[in-house]
């Protein structure tokens, strides 16, 4: 058989192929030749054949039949064979196939070979693709080589050890003795790989970390030498001595200095030195500075150093090289929580980065900008961010819109501004707004009582322009349904009221129903809005007609609604006004049960809970979480409201299940607690005749006197919190029959272990004398096991200058309060 063609020859031939088919043909021919050659067990040309196979593999052709041949090459005595054999193994074999285990013995032998280059090949292969079984078998050999004085082998053994530890973490202990004098090496290769090994060990084991902390002075010394030493041609990169080693040392220092004062102090000087002396004209200097900044921010550095670090990042932001800018923005994002003020100083530069052409830079700039928004800069920042929203790529719009909403909710300087901002977002990026924004916005609008007329007017005008953006249309139709009367009466204070008739409004809403652009959900919104207007407008007949038409709609949802509304007109017309009346202001808290629970165990320890805002309700896992984490970190938690029922459910938006009539209006995060009063109405479900207002729960529980001593009387009144029947809502009424006021009045309560209790803030802490007034406070008790309610209360107040304190047990709860 003629000698197989040479590698280069083959490559040349294949490259002359003009079509994919031609190439495939050549390859197939050659593969066949190679296969027969393998079958003949030809030792001479095996190496050549495998090399050719590897080339064809790179082109994308299957080469698995060469796997065993690679193993034979590895076992050969010829260096060339071994070289190609190991290369083939790394390319063709993978640890999921048992075949690779056959290598183990060869590698073991080669690790002990007399020629260091063969040992090197074995170490390289093991360190690149060694499976856990191989690592377990060969760890001993690697450990031995780690202690050799041959630096060529020692550096490879160190990295091989890193791989072994990654694959089989339990073996880490084994390498500990060998690390003893790794850092005393002069050879940079060994130093570098040793630092990598130490880093790996410290990252994986806190014990190792503690053990290696003592190396900090040595590392500092090595780093110092690198910086201070003169030009060393062997390791120089653009005037900097061995930047690779410098960066790795800085990274190890970061791990060692984290949460450790002494270590951090020991490295303060060198970090300052590196930060100030490193040449920044080339990328390599900036790479070192970048690592230094990361280290400074992570360890317990003194504030001067931290400011230095942030300033370096600020300078990076102004660098022409966009890679540097990118890296700066990433780091600033990490530090914005902890060093907020320092980062604020660079706000304008960050905002400029919003206009950068690079997508990654824009994204980071956007996230950072949202993190920097606060009460002082909200107007300016929002202008920039809205401009960004206008012009950015679609992939950003959803996140940006969510971010704008959150920021506006937290820091809106005025209601008008807030509504305007929302309008702006809806009109410019309306189709990208997240689905959950619609209920949130509706809730927000409801709470801005004085802006209702303005809001509905603006939304109406926006609808006239464009009905394609569904979230906008949904919010608008809901508002028109609610506040349509304000719209036609032309009583807008904020801007010039528009003249619009009832028919025009109904035209618009009916237009939404028939338009192809409207999503089914949107149609639902507009049908309901039309229905609501039946109590606010006078053209009831028109509305009746529309509703009856849709009673035979193909869309099941619309049909159901229309049929129910029809029923309202026909059989339940007396309920219609009540059902469709204006929505009460929605309570700003989670629907299901108390979220801020203080657990007590029936001891006398008071369970006073500050009236904090409820923590974030768990959000759907989407990118809004990232923004929320940035915004809601240390600040007042963002109030997350959940619409009690999704609008899609039949008639859901007619009745607010929370039924809160509190008048704690004002800017969005209302701190005053809301007192739940009368029970909300239940749904009129289809054609069933459930009672409209379920007063049973509320009226049933009689009030009681919990405490009456020394002129202080405390009465409890009860409600059930909907929708969770396990929660009893108790309102205490404290009255004072003595001649003097009781000041600094504090009511505290504790409940047994099976209960959970939440105390909202009191109406005041002065109980006026002679029963002239009462102090009220709301307690919510969660009683999932329906056990008998018991409570221990502690009262403290000041009467005529002297403090009074009393404890009492309350056991006379009426059975209905906990059953």
């Amino acid at each position: 058989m003629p000698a197989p063609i040479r590698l280069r020859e083959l490559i040349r031939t294949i490259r002359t192929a003009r079509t994919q088919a031609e190439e495939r043909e050549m390859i197939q021919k050659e593969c066949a030749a190679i296969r027969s050659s393998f079958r003949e067990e030809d030792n001479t040309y095996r190496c050549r054949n495998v090399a050719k196979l590897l080339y064809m593999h790179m082109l994308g052709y299957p080469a698995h039949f060469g796997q065993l041949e690679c193993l034979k090459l590895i076992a050969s005595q010829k260096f060339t064979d071994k070289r190609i054999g190991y290369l083939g193994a790394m390319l063709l074999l993978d640890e999921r196939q048992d075949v690779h285990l056959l290598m183990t013995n060869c590698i073991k032998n080669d690790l002990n070979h007399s020629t260091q280059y063969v040992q090197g090949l074995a170490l390289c292969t093991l360190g690149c693709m060694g499976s856990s079984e191989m690592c377990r078998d060969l760890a001993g050999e690697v450990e031995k080589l780690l202690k050799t004085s041959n630096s060529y082998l020692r550096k490879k053994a160190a990295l091989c050890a890193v791989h072994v530890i990654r694959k089989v973490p339990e073996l880490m202990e084994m390498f500990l003795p060998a690390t003893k004098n790794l850092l005393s090496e002069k050879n940079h290769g060994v130093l570098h790989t040793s630092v990598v090994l130490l880093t790996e060990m410290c990252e994986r084991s806190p014990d190792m970390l503690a053990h290696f902390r003592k190396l900090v002075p040595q590392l500092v010394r090595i780093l110092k030498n690198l910086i201070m030493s003169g030009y060393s041609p062997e390791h120089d990169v653009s005037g900097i001595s061995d930047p690779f080693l410098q960066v790795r040392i800085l990274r190890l220092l970061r791990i060692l200095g984290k949460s450790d004062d002494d270590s951090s102090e020991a490295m303060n000087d060198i970090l300052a030195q590196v930060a100030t002396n490193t040449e920044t004209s080339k990328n390599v200097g900036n790479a070192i500075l970048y690592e230094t900044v990361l280290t400074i921010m992570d360890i317990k550095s003194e504030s001067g150093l931290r400011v230095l670090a942030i300033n370096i990042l600020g300078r990076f932001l102004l660098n022409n090289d966009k890679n540097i800018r990118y890296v700066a923005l990433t780091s600033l994002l990490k530090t914005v929580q902890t060093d907020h003020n320092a980062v604020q100083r660079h706000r304008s530069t960050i905002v400029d980065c919003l206009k950068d052409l690079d997508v990654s830079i824009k994204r980071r700039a956007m996230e950072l900008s949202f993190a920097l928004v606060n009460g002082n800069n909200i107007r300016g920042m929002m202008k920039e961010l809205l401009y960004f929203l206008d012009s950015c790529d679609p992939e950003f719009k959803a996140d940006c819109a969510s971010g704008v909403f959150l920021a506006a909710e937290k820091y809106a300087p005025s209601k008008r501004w807030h509504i305007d901002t929302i309008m702006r977002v809806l009109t410019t990026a309306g189709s990208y707004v997240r689905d959950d924004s619609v209920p949130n916005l509706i809730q927000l609008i409801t709470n801005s009582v004085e802006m209702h007329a303005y809001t509905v007017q603006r939304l109406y005008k926006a609808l006239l322009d464009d009905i394609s953006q569904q979230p906008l249309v949904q919010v608008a139709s809901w508002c028109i349904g609610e506040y349509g009367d304000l719209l036609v009466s032309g009583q807008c204070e904020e801007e010039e009221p528009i003249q619009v008739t009832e028919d025009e409004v109904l035209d618009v809403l009916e237009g939404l129903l028939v338009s192809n652009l409207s999503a089914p959900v949107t149609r639902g919104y507009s049908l309901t809005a039309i229905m609501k207007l039946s109590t606010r407008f006078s053209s009831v007949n028109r509305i009746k007609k529309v509703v009856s038409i849709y009673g035979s709609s193909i869309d099941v949802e619309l049909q159901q609604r229309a049929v129910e509304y029809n029923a309202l007109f026909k059989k339940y017309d007396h309920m219609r006004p009540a059902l469709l009346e204006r929505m009460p202001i929605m309570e700003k808290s989670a629907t299901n049960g108390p979220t801020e629970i203080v657990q007590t165990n029936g001891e006398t320890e008071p369970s006073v809970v500050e009236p904090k805002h409820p923590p974030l309700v768990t959000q759907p896992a989407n990118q809004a979480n990232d923004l929320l984490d940035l915004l809601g970190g240390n600040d007042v938690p963002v109030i997350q409201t959940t619409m009690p029922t999704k609008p899609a459910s039949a008639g859901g938006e007619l009745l607010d299940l929370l039924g809160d009539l509190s008048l704690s209006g004002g800017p969005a995060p209302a701190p005053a607690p809301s007192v739940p009063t009368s029970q909300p109405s239940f749904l009129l479900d289809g054609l069933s005749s459930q009672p409209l207002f379920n007063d049973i729960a509320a009226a049933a529980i009689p009030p009681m006197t919990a405490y009456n001593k020394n002129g202080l009387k405390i009465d409890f009144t009860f409600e059930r919190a909907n929708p969770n029947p396990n929660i009893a809502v108790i309102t205490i009424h404290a009255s004072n029959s003595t001649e003097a006021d009781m000041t600094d009045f504090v009511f505290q309560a504790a409940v047994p272990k099976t209960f959970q209790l939440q105390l909202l803030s009191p109406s005041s802490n002065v109980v006026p004398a002679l029963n002239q007034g009462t102090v009220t406070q709301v307690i919510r008790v969660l009683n999932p096991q329906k056990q008998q309610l018991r409570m221990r209360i502690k009262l403290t107040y000041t009467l005529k200058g002297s403090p009074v304190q009393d404890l009492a047990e309350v056991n006379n709860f009426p059975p209905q309060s906990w059953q």
Partner: protein
Amino acid sequence: MQFMLLFSRQGKLRLQKWYVPLSDKERKKISRDLVQTILARKPKMCSFLEWRDLKIVYKRYASLYFCCAVEDQDNELITLEIIHRYVELLDKYFGSVCELDIIFNFEKAYFILDEFLLGGEAQETSKKNVLKAIEQADLLQEVRTVLYQQIDTDTSTTN
């Protein structure tokens, strides 16, 4: 580092070094997708991007793209330096390296890479030492071994 890919402007792979265990199929898919993503980027864009859950660092030298996937804690700027160092090594070894050198001598490109990086980390920071090691290893290929009489000329450098 998780892997390094070298590919041409037409998307043809010239070198692929994997430091994480993945099947052939997975490797092919990743290469294909990543190459497409990078080739779609405009010249003025950043050298870094997030792709799946990896950080990608890439740089173009003449007609070849050098692309590395690094982990979260890795320093992107120094990775650029690593890429540059590898190009310098190739340049020194081949004498003004061009894409054709890497095509026709791909196994040498791998050998050089394996003397510079091991398991995804740099094992030698001195250019001189890497080149010296390669030189010595190449010489070893020429040497007749005691056991076999035939001279192996298949992959000699004079080809």
